């Protein structure tokens, strides 16, 4: 079985968002949230196999984006729950602050990289005292304690090129494309259902999130119709067939 540990281009969800937004700044005039969400979700589809931590982070941010999108699409005369609204805006501001910090560190990292490169032109002498220097053994200072030495040994024995975490990778992570296929097939068979019933087999929140993302895609394609009477009502699904 083969799987990818690293995403193709992006290092994590913030990196992805940042790239999607800044790319558009160059090519298109304005990037709408709708476009951003669909590009983000489309990318999510392509990285089916990631380690758990990255995936949950991706999904978490996807959830925030989708919430924001849903909120913005609400008609103006719709009543608004102030608490929910505040929480959502707080979440949005937090995401923006993280994006900004991420962009800042990316920028300064380039400067550090440049400095590192430029300084490699300065070579120090590394020979130290001539080896034939008087026999006296200078008192040596080991600037780490036993624990520090153990840490160094740990690092040396697990070289960074080798990823020791591969073994703990859960390989059956929820895949959004799989969820789309499953949802589509099952909906075709029953025509009408509730979202809760469609996810009754899911054990983890991540799986539910994958199904929710799948549902949004199917709704966008017009394959499944979605209806919810009020905020606490069940989400009703209807199969609309192939678009």
């Amino acid at each position, binding site marked *: 079985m083969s799987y990818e540990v690293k995403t193709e281009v992006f*290092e*994590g*969800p*913030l*990196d992805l968002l*940042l790239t999607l*937004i*800044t790319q*558009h*700044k160059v090519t298109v005039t*304005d*990037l*709408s*949230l*709708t476009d951003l969400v669909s590009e983000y979700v489309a990318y999510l589809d392509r990285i089916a196999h990631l*380690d758990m*931590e*990255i995936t949950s*982070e991706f999904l978490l941010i996807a959830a925030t984006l989708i919430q*924001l*999108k849903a909120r*913005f*699409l609400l008609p103006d005369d719709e009543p608004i729950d102030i608490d929910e609204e505040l929480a959502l805006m707080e979440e949005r501001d937090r995401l*923006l602050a*993280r994006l*900004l910090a*991420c*962009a*800042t*560190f*990316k*920028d*300064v*990292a380039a*400067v*550090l*990289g440049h*400095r*590192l490169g*430029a*300084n*490699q032109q*300065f*070579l*120090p*002498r*590394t020979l*130290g*005292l*001539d080896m034939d220097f008087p026999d006296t053994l200078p008192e040596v200072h080991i600037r780490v304690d036993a624990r*520090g030495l153990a*840490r160094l040994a740990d*690092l*040396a024995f*697990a*070289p*960074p090129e080798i*990823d020791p*975490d591969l073994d703990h990778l859960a390989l059956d992570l929820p895949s959004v494309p799989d969820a789309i296929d499953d949802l589509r097939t099952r909906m075709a068979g029953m025509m009408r259902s509730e979202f809760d019933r469609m996810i009754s087999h899911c054990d983890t929140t991540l799986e539910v999130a994958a199904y929710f993302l799948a549902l949004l895609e199917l709704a*966008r394609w017009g394959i499944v119709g979605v209806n919810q009477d009020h905020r606490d009502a069940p989400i009703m699904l209807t199969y609309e067939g192939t678009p």
Partner: protein
Amino acid sequence: MNTRGLLEAILFVAEEPVAAPELAQVLEVPVAQVVDELTAWARDLEQRHAGFVLREIAGGWRLYSNPGAAAYLERFAASPGASRLSQAALETLAVVAYRQPVSRGQVSEIRGVDCERTMRTLERYGLIAEVGIAPGPGSPILYGSTELFLEKLGLNRLSDLPPLAEHVPPADVVEALERPFRPEASSSESTN
């Protein structure tokens, strides 16, 4: 041999930058005199385009080959410098340098990805090191940058790092980042 000569001898064999007070102690002369001699020597070397330069770095003084000769040195130097750091490693290094002391969790939170591997790489290169334990739940290890980090970047002290504020994206980029998240932006959509 005069003080200049002795300073030359010591810095010739030194394997890391040596602080002026330490040199003063070994030579039993005032620190001010050491600093004067070193400053004059550094200027001499520079003026006559010598093959090596004297730099004040990481809180001390050390001799380095003149970068102008870099092209000729590849065959003779044993250590052509640390291998190039990946983009991820550089970004992680930047976060640790500017946010220190900082835990791995905090670095990962800022970067949006788990940074264990890159931090291990940086620790192995000696660019970052454990500097303490955070109080509170889990007592996470705190990391900071090392003297070697300063030396590799050619900085004398941490405060010589370029100010982070200068690297906050310019207004138009911030504007672009925020735009999709503003309600007005989505009002003009006609699709779906």
